[in-house]
């Protein structure tokens, strides 16, 4: 449909995919190394933090050494790294002593909540940004465009935690229409329908905060593309023919913006994940962000390592898939 995309053969495509996979694996290995070293450079000792309560008794040196060994903290860094890496290669993310649970279980328990936020926010901001961006871009310079673009520019300059706090203040505390935190009420219903409603009520504010954070980026993208498309002959021709606005929107603007959105998604996902971490902390949402935050405060190295690697691996895999999809779409021409 559009001109300019270079057709790619099936073989070249496969090679590009393979190269992408290799590169991403190398990045993951780098993450593994860095996330092992960084927490150990923080002041504070995991066992010390764990036993920091005033009520803990003085354990004997042997007792402390025993606990240290069980937390995987015996020996030097090289020894710890070796032990951890060999577990990792067997697919074992380790055991969190502070939570008394395998790291994999902890991740599995919080991941659904984080995914709920991300997958809840994505369609909201993608669809709204596309509609608003096209609306503004096809009549660039008009009143709608100027008003909206101004508003979005202000919005884009607010960091996500501020948006989250403002939303919470406005809609959960000053005018309490939504719950201020958590994923479920304290005494959740045991009826499926009511329970789903309760989850939905709790998810609205964090999803809104997240969607607002990403909205600006895609709004600019859609607007910029729409400005260009509006002056392209095939669009002008279609407008002149009196094509129904809906068809114009989906088939002329929408289809052309889709590959660009997908390409941009792949590099926006990492930003999305860092935003979700902060939003989860603000709303005390039981997702992976809170887990990471707690792991830093507790100096829970194993948990911090495990969650970071899981998130990094997930991101890289997603990024690879989106790239592949983008290449395929572009290749189709």
């Amino acid at each position: 449909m559009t001109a300019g995309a270079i057709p790619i053969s099936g073989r070249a495509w496969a090679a590009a995919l393979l190269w992408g996979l290799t590169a991403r694996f190398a990045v993951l290995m780098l993450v593994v190394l860095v996330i092992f070293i960084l927490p150990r450079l923080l002041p504070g000792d995991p066992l010390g933090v764990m036993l920091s309560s005033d009520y803990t008794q003085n354990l004997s040196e042997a007792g402390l050494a025993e606990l240290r060994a069980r937390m995987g903290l015996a020996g030097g860094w090289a020894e710890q790294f070796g032990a951890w890496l060999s577990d990792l290669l067997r697919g074992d993310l380790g055991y969190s002593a502070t939570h008394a649970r395998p790291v994999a279980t902890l991740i599995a328990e919080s991941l659904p909540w984080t995914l709920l936020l991300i997958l809840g926010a994505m369609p909201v901001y993608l669809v709204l940004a596309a509609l608003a961006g096209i609306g503004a871009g096809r009549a660039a310079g008009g009143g709608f465009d100027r008003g909206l673009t101004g508003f979005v520019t202000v919005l884009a300059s607010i960091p996500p935690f501020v948006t989250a706090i403002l939303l919470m203040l406005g809609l959960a505390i000053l005018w309490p229409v939504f719950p201020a935190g958590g994923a479920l009420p304290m005494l959740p219903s045991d009826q499926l329908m009511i329970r789903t409603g309760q989850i939905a009520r709790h998810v609205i504010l964090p999803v809104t905060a997240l969607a607002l954070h990403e909205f600006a980026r895609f709004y600019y993208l859609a607007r910029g593309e729409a400005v260009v498309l509006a002056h392209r002959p095939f669009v002008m021709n279609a407008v002149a023919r009196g094509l129904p606005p809906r068809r114009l929107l989906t088939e002329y603007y929408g289809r052309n913006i889709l590959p660009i959105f997908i390409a941009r998604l792949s590099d926006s996902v990492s930003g999305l994940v860092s935003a979700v971490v902060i939003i989860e902390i603000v709303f005390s949402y039981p997702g992976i962000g809170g887990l990471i935050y707690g792991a830093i405060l507790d100096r829970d190295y194993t948990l911090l390592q495990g969650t970071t690697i899981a998130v990094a691996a997930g991101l890289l895999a997603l990024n690879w898939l989106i790239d592949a999809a983008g290449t395929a779409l572009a290749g189709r021409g």
Partner: protein
Amino acid sequence: MQILRTVLLVLATMLASPALAQDDKPLVITDTRGDRGMLAPYVHARNGIAYLYTSYIFDSLIAQNSKGELVPGLAESWTLSEDGLTADLELNPKARWHDGQPVTAQDAAFTFSYMAQNPYPFASIGNIEQAEAISDHHLRLTLKKRDAGLFSGLLLALPVLPRHIYSSQTDPGHFASPAAATGSGPYQLVEYDKAQGRYALKANPDYYRGQPVFDAVMIVTMSADAALQALNNGEVDVISYLPPERAGDAEAAGQQVVAARSGHVVKIGFNHEGMFADTDMRQALAYALDRQAILDITSTRGEAALADTGYFQSGSPWRENVADPAYAHDPGHAADLLEKQGLTRGASEKWQRDGAPVTLRLLADGAQARVAQVVTDQLEAFGFTVDLRLMEQAALQAVPAGGDYDLLISSASTTGDPSDIASRVTGQSWNADRYHGDGKLDEILQKAGQSATPDERLTHLHEFQRLYARELPSLMLLDPVMATAHNDRVDLSFMPDGALIGIPTAIDKSAFVTE
């Protein structure tokens, strides 16, 4: 693959039912902090509240009544030999584990040997030479040396473990399945939702000390605001820790509030290897500060009381009921003491030593930011230059004794059986006093620990109190007040010296069992 399976499982259970039947009307307690870990000795979070919740499920050999006095727990009676080295305990034959098995002296003896292999941070059994089951219900403990805190300290604190469950566990830190929470206490754990920080407990119907007061107890996570609203709506019954400044709100709504000094003091610790090695310097600082003003500025709505300087806080049964030296604000006296130490006042009234200005490096736990700021202002007004650094706890912990600081503001517990005081005074932990002085304090504490009679122990502790207030290993500033709001379904009160291991709480186990 395993992650994926668990994700799917959790997704499925996210929508499934966890709640208790509504007609049970459990006693609902709120906790602001949430998840405290699985309620079993080796896997609960390592803090006082997690330990407290676990004590609902696991009984110790000795228990407390609501006044904090020792009463029979799993042990019906106990005696101590003349030399203080042999304790004989008779276990209650009616006691059962939650799975129906009898609790025996073998279980108790097993607990000691198991904890020797697998250290449990809330009970130190280093002084136990041997624990043996003479018969099914007769436990004999042999001590390495006399311990005045054996009953009120160790045996009150130590949860007895079921041998038939724990003997096969080589690493109890990894044992967090529901079976790990098989105790002999008044309540059984029914449900633990980690993500929501929610616990459902039900009464142990066969409890050896009689039917527990409530059929079911729930602990849920809620912010103070939400909890107050829920208390007024009748959705919750107890707000375990209500910010004291909100007490008025709860009372105005017709709820009951109990409050007490926590004994969890905010204090200034000194670097005893630096410029505050000398008692005169510490006393000078005490006189330079206006503790009453610190209290008035940081506690405008009854959040704290002025702390006693002799370690023990008002209300403690270990404290001699006399006024400790108050170190009332006296800048003139402080200046005299400093000048005796060779400090001089420079041109701009700034303190100098050998012509160089004196800068005090003040570290503080972020939670004490307000107190730290007032202290800084007062010291600067007195002529010191103050370099204030607020740090998170893990980072403070990494600052060694004798490290890069002069003063350190932290909060620390002073409650619980005194057998632990030595570690809080001479210990190396960041919020311990890290103080040895001439060794006299330590010696007094040793004697207190070796006392043959309670009266003798008290005499030593009172001497400790006097000496502490004079030598100032740390300067006690404030004693924060803790409050609990509840409706009339329960009758709650704070124990004078904290519950069990010294936890300042009104929801200790004694409130939920019939006495």
